[in-house]
């Protein structure tokens, strides 16, 4: 289309440096038209799409599912029983047929112990994380949303518990703990000192979401404060909590191993990777593989959670999403 046809009739005589682009170069689009053909994308759908595209996501989640399955049904993976049939004659023995990872100092099958050890580690990780998220989210949300006196009280309590590094706190409590210890108890004790981080993160996220216009709009609609917290503020504040929860699940597993290694965690009668590593250290020079296998299982599990945490963070991080 020649330029002239778009100039209004009866005008002309434009200055020579007045340039007008041919219309077909930049066809005029309707102002602010709605894309009707694009895929629906909520935050979660977008995050899912972003995660799905990453091999790391599949690797870590398949690993986690597999380990969880092993933890729940160890008997499906080995016919050996981890504690029975231990023959001292096999002490620190190398791999033989049916015993691919050899034997421990006590002559127990390493493979079976690695398989059966998954349960304790996972239980500690999952229970501690669930409890930490429950306590942290409730306290953090109340402090951040209602502010004032409740905020002051909760924030000081958070500071107090935060002042005790959670492994140190667990060492004290576990060293005076009387009665039989098990994975649940270790998990609860870890979460007793682990919740402040989640509470702080939730509080920060809630404070941020609370100031959004959609919150004010809902209050102006007559929605009660509690419902606003539940329906608008929390869903928008939960993303960073999910990320931290995923990562701390792995950290709790490491903490349990450290406590067991120190001798205050799970009692030796409970089968766990931490206990096995601690027991294998005495024979590290003669049979390093008895230490390697449980350590590798533990690290791989933790690594899976850390990687999943990274993937989830990238997917939920608005800054990453904007790119």
């Amino acid at each position, binding site marked *: 289309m020649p330029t002239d046809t778009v100039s209004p009739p009866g005008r002309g005589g434009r200055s020579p440096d007045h340039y007008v682009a041919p219309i077909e170069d930049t066809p005029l689009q309707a102002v602010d038209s709605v894309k009707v053909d694009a895929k629906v994308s909520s935050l979660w759908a977008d995050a899912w799409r972003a995660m799905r595209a990453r091999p790391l996501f599949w690797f870590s989640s398949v690993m986690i599912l597999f380990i969880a399955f092993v933890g729940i049904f160890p008997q499906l993976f080995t016919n050996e029983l981890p504690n029975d049939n231990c023959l001292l004659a096999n002490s620190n023995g190398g791999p033989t047929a049916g015993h691919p990872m050899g034997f421990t100092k006590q002559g127990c099958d390493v493979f079976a112990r690695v398989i059966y050890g998954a349960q304790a580690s996972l239980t500690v990780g999952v229970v501690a994380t669930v409890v930490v998220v429950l306590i942290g989210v409730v306290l953090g949300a109340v402090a951040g949303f209602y502010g004032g006196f409740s905020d002051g009280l909760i924030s*000081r*309590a958070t*500071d*107090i*518990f935060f*002042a*005790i*590094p959670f*492994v*140190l*706190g667990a*060492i*004290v*409590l576990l*060293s*005076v*703990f*009387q009665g039989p210890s098990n994975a649940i108890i270790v998990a609860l004790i870890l979460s007793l000192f682990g919740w402040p981080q989640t509470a702080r993160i939730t509080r920060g996220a809630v404070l941020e979401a609370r100031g959004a216009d959609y919150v004010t709009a809902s209050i102006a609609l007559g929605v009660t404060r509690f419902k606003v917290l539940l329906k608008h503020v929390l869903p928008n504040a939960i993303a960073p909590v999910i990320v931290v929860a995923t990562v701390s699940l*792995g*950290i709790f597993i*490491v903490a349990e*191993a*450290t406590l067991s*290694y*120190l*001798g*205050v965690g799970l009692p030796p009668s409970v089968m766990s990777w*931490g206990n096995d*590593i*601690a027991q294998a*250290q005495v024979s*590290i*020079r003669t049979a*390093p593989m008895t*230490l390697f296998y449980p*350590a590798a299982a*533990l*690290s*791989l599990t*933790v*690594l899976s959670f*850390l*990687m999943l945490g*990274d993937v989830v963070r990238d997917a939920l991080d608005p*800054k990453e999403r904007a790119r």
Partner: protein
Amino acid sequence: MLWFIGRRLLQMIPVFFGATFLIYFMVFALPGDPILALFGEKTPSPAVVEQLRAQYHLDQPFIVQYLLYLKSLVTFDLGNSFSGRPIADVMAKAFPVTLRLATLAVLFEAVAGITVGLISGLRKGKFFDSSALVVSLLLISIPTFVIGFVLQYVFAVQLGWTKATVGPQAGWSELVLPAIVLASVSFAYIIRLTRTSISENMGADYVRTASSKGLTRGRVVRVHVLRNSLIPVVTFIGADFGALMVGAIVTEGIFNIPGVGGTVFQAIKQGQGPTVVSFVAVFVIIFMVANLLVDLLYAVLDPRIRYAN
């Protein structure tokens, strides 16, 4: 600034009382005989029980017990260890060793961590960055004691570059390997933190403006990117003291270092509850002071906090 310091000190008071009370409560107010509990499976001699009852004033009302305990904490009157030596003496002897170890560890994690993190952040998505990320994830997911065993086995036993256990003098050179083990997890966190911080700041408006002023890329990175990115890193290093102390228990145990951590390690292993509890209480106080110092450091580094009301 003065007001800021004053307010932080004021805020620390309830935290100090709260945290010490919490520890005391856990040990002495939970159901069961606290003295017996401190010894776990073992049964202490009646003389020891008597001495501990006196030391912890168990015949007094609970709140008085706590206040007297607090007094003994701040006056370092921490009672005697199993062997009959005053715990304060044990601590005085062990602290310099741990201080040396911690200094080496912090030096290592800061220098190496920031260097690797800086390169990673500037080359986000490149090969170096991906490898650094993998290494950092591995370091976090392998428990410190496993890293300790492995490094001890490889460098001391196999290669013979250093001694497997540290002597009673615990000189600087003997502590290099333990310090690396102790720093390993924090090293990994510092890589990740520096990397994120650097790559975030690289996209900041003021960095583009700095380039538009005609500064060289080197100066932009040094003065505008690195300086701003290091604020969270430096505060992390300070706040990481807690992890460092836990790490010291494990690391000093592995290398048989006669430091504070090693003492706690031995005490846990031998079921010496009173020693463990006393030491952990001191750790918590150190951790609180470290956090306070970090907050002040933050204010020094970030003028927005220094001059805020």
